[in-house]
């Protein structure tokens, strides 16, 4: 297909070096209420300067009630309104809430399972195991499981109760909820604030992986960097087999975002908020529009937690089918489930030791709370919250641990992934799905995918180096390295 230049060229944004991993966008426009702060090494920064990432960061800094700085993380890339890989904290009452600061895929996130198996145990059965997962977990365009349908009233309960609703129905173990952010349920969810269109989209898609960058991988622990914390997380040795699930709230969340962007456009006029970009539309934190969005968003957050719970259940079943033994025998314990796209009310130091309630918008960012924080599960509290950073297809993924530095610098947040380098059409021109598959298979990685073009678009060179992203997080200290995971088998839409 024809390629041409896009019309709107990126604006040149001034940047000042703070240190090797921190860069400040000064308040170069009068509309900027706070500076921008970019966490990146030189190479990652240079990549951001090729598109609109930094300009979008400067736009976010114009949101009413924003505190300290608009943050771009090492994986930052151009998004809609907000850059992807960013954080903004706004005042609880005087600040705004923006659906664009969460994104379309509300609670797109990652779930990690540990097993008691080693690579040598899994290797002989790897292909059938990947095949079983591919069969049991619907993925790709329009996928669904015919034997798992829910009614409208089930959906109301699911989005209100989150993962617990599935656990009560036998899709999971009682302890699973303890290892989810928010225990797998935001309590303020109110399905009355969700449109019928969103509900209809959600009904058919619960328990599906989706397509694009979403994936499910059987991985092994490649290297442990912090054995004490790793052990607390159930990561005991190199070669240990893990399972990672990366997906979100599907059409349900996409529609909630879309519906409330429209609500917020009216709110922008009603409350006379001046914004540089339509996708930043927002409403004051104490307005009915913002309250409605937060309650609808919470439904989508719970939908996504439940979606990953159902998928995890079918992964456990797949192990049972292939090995003919109970899943418990292989561990298959939930290490943690963490959101990457979410807005939450949290208390943070907003400067000079002043603590405030703020709306933390994490768009492509992982919460990274330190040891001792009450929101970290009991059994991890002495270490800190697990941070899960998925790589791209065929690359490593990372387990990090949150730290006090994140509370000081990034409103308790760090990066969420690799971040794209190359456009999808460029990737498709350079790579062919079949070649990508055979290259991965030469490295011993089993690949099961619905779409050859997705394989090409998701080719590893199309992404930033996730190791570099984890490295910057570790060097800055906002979340530090625990373990590196590498794929044994990849299942994609």
């Amino acid at each position, binding site marked *: *297909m*024809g*390629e*041409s*230049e*896009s*019309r*709107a060229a990126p604006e040149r944004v001034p940047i000042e070096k703070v240190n090797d991993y921190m860069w400040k966008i000064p308040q170069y426009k009068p509309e900027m209420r706070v500076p921008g702060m970019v966490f990146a090494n030189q190479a990652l920064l240079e990549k951001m300067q090729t*598109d609109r990432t930094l300009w979008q960061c400067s736009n976010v800094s114009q949101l009413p009630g924003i505190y300290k700085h608009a943050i771009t993380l090492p994986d930052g*890339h*151009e*998004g*809609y*309104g907000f850059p*992807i890989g960013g954080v903004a904290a706004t005042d609880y009452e005087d600040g705004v809430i923006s659906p664009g600061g969460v994104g*379309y*895929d509300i609670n797109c996130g990652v779930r990690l399972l540990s097993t008691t198996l080693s690579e040598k145990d899994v290797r002989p059965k790897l292909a059938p195991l990947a095949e079983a997962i591919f069969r049991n977990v619907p993925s*790709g*365009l*329009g996928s669904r499981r015919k034997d798992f349908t829910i009614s409208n009233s089930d959906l109301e309960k699911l989005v209100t109760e989150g993962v617990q609703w599935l656990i009560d129905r036998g899709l999971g173990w009682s302890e699973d909820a303890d290892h989810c952010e928010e225990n797998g349920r935001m309590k303020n969810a109110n399905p009355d604030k969700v449109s019928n*269109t969103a509900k*209809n*989209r959600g*009904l*058919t*898609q619960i328990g599906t992986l*989706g*397509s*694009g960058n979403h994936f499910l991988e059987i991985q092994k622990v490649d290297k442990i960097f912090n054995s004490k914390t790793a052990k607390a997380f159930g990561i005991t040795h190199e070669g240990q087999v893990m399972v990672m699930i990366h997906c979100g709230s599907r*059409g349900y969340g*996409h*529609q909630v*975002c*879309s519906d409330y*962007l*429209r609500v917020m*456009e009216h709110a922008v006029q009603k409350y006379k908020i001046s914004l540089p*970009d*339509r*996708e930043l539309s927002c409403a004051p934190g104490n307005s009915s529009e913002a309250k409605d969005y937060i309650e609808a968003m919470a439904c989508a957050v719970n939908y996504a937690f439940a979606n990953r719970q159902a998928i995890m259940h079918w992964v456990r079943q797949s192990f049972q089918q292939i090995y003919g033994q109970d899943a418990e025998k292989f561990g298959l314990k939930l290490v943690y489930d963490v959101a990457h796209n979410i807005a939450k009310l949290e208390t943070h130091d907003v400067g000079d030791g002043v603590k405030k309630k703020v709306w933390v918008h994490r768009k492509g960012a992982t919460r990274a709370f330190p040891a001792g924080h009450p929101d970290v599960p009991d059994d991890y509290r002495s270490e800190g919250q697990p941070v899960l950073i998925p790589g791209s297809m065929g690359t490593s993924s990372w387990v990090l641990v949150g730290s006090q530095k994140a509370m000081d610098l990034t409103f308790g947040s760090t990066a969420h992934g690799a971040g*794209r*380098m*190359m*456009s*999808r*059409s*460029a990737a498709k*021109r350079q790579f*062919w799905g079949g070649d990508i598959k055979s290259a991965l298979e030469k490295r011993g990685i089993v690949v099961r995918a*619905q*779409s050859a*073009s*997705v394989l090409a*678009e998701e080719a590893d060179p199309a992404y930033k180096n996730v190791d570099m992203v984890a490295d910057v997080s570790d060097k800055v200290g906002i979340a530090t390295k625990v373990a590196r995971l590498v794929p044994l088998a990849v299942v994609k*839409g």
Partner: protein
Amino acid sequence: MSKPDKFAGRFEFLEHTADVYVRAHGKNMEEAYENAALSMFETMTDTTKIAQAQEETLEVEAEDQYALLYSWLEALLVKFETENMLYSKFQITSWKETADIFKIKAKIWGEKYDPKKHPQKVGVKAITYHLMVIIREPDRVILEFILDI
């Protein structure tokens, strides 16, 4: 790998790092909307494989021309996700606009999605306003928009 572009003059995909960036053309708004819709289904599958077996009507309204384009594409995406329908032919049959309301009616033709018949490309999550451009001239229209995938 280059191949002749069967959609030349109707739409093209522009460079964008993360998502699908479309430029759709038409000699008027109606035709540009029809081509924009086709580009979205071409993102998901091969539209030449979608039979025009079933005819339906669709009505969309919005408060301005950007919201109308957004709503048009979103209505079609929702049809796919909730009714499992794919479409390959679109005809805007009525176009009404006043200062504060835009309203269109369309006929659309397609068939139920069948993974065995319709090759999978990538699912579209949402339409976005990011970099949305509508150029409306007397004898030609250009629409640019990004699909979040």
